[in-house]
């Protein structure tokens, strides 16, 4: 039983020595993963807040100021994405992709929502990626509006490597965008905005047709979202339909009246909220 005793003296064993190396490698990887998950969670929260903010465009007159406010918020998000890019410097981004995919999808959702409100078009993957090239100047710029006590990015003065959103994250973010557009449509109806719902329904149909063109040939997560997308579209189409049939009753000369009174009411509301 001598062998056995000897092996119990673990400290000298080459096996234990090897496992100590593994321990370090695994912990390092795990820590990086955890850090990325945290950044991703922050990105998610901040992107969701941006989306909440952007929904206010259906109920205020000064759309521009909301867009500006959302720019500031999205810049903050991009600084967080720069932190991800920094963490991934020299890494295979797919190794940690699971850690940050949720955050990136939510960012795509937010930035494409803002883009739609501003330009009434779908932002492309190229456009999104172009915004994620972090120059030195940009990182300094970005720091200015940081009234919030966000920790200074570890990037400091030196620029982070560019971050590339992969197509499936783009698709998944855009799929979720349709849900927000649906909410925006229903909000507009409530506020007597006639044009937006019709525009939205056409745009949403295009996106829907795009997704059904891709169908189940893409990643599984995308096909899973098709059903929700179809439901969102149906809700928007129903809203437009309702506007049309109700609108058919309105005597032409009253049109102005109606909206004047609506606007007055809305403004009153704003005072409260």
């Amino acid at each position: 039983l001598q062998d056995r005793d000897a092996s119990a003296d673990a400290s000298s064993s080459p096996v234990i020595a090897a496992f100590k190396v593994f321990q370090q490698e695994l912990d390092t990887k795990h820590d990086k993963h955890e850090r990325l998950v945290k950044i991703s969670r922050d990105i998610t929260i901040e992107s969701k807040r941006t989306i909440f903010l952007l929904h206010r465009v259906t109920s205020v007159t000064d759309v521009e100021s909301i867009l500006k406010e959302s720019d500031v918020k999205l810049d903050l998000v991009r600084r967080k994405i720069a932190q991800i890019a920094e963490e991934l410097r020299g890494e295979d981004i797919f190794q940690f992709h699971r850690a940050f995919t949720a955050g990136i999808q939510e960012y795509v959702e937010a930035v494409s929502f803002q883009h739609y409100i501003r330009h009434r078009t779908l932002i492309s993957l190229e456009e999104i990626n172009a915004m994620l090239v972090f120059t030195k100047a940009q990182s300094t710029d970005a720091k200015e509006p940081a009234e919030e006590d966000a920790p200074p990015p570890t990037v400091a003065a030196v620029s982070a490597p560019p971050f590339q959103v992969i197509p499936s994250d783009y698709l998944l973010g855009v799929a979720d965008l349709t849900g927000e557009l649906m909410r925006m449509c229903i909000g507009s109806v409530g506020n007597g905005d006639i044009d937006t719902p019709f525009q939205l329904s056409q745009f949403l149909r295009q996106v829907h047709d795009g997704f059904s063109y891709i169908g189940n040939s893409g990643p599984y997560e995308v096909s899973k979202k098709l059903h929700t997308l179809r439901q969102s579209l149906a809700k928007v189409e129903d809203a437009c339909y309702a506007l049309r049939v109700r609108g058919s009753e309105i005597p032409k000369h009253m049109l102005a009246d109606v909206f004047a009174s609506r606007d007055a009411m809305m403004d009153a509301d704003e005072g409260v909220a």
Partner: protein
Amino acid sequence: MSVTEMFADIQGFLSADQDIREDIRKVVQQLEQAAREILTLLQGVHQPTGFKEIPTKCAKAREMFCTVRTHMADLKTKFPAEQYYRFQEHWRFVLQRLAFLATFVGYLECEALVTREEAAKIIGIEVVREEGFHLGVEDYLAGVLIMASELSRLAVNSVTAGDYSRPLRISNFINELDSGFRLLNLKNDPLRKRYDGLKYDVKKIEEVVYDLSIRGLSKEADNAGDK
């Protein structure tokens, strides 16, 4: 203490737990019965004739909440106060219904949002977690959302009953609620799901208001000038 004695003790613990749950279930059933009776009473407001009787019905409902408070007082005696969360699942459903009924009565009376404090008082429980049996934030909000959906129905029926001004007031109220909810950072929990339903209530009421507007009926209401 021998092993046997110890396990006999432990069995005592386990049995006591089951007895508590049995007791709780019984009181909860009575609460559900009471809640159903208040609901039946308040449903009457959707009837054309019901509109005039709102004050009477509210007064009646207020009285019926006495029974609720009695059962609640009883419920509190069934388990140690600090174990609220241990048994919460048993009364969660009925508590949300009661929060709905309390906020609904309150709205019918003075067209304003009953606060969590007031709602808790009507139901006969605390607001603050530390003081024992309380009305948690989630349960209160769930009740408020059920009320919102009831109000969208009320907006439709008040038009039928010829009351053209109420839908506008409901609309303003619901919009205020909606803004409030937008302030919350809801995760993907049951509350979030319920909140998504609120948007449809908002839309439905807006359509009623719109219908009234294009017929000039909302002005008529203004001129008539109740409230």
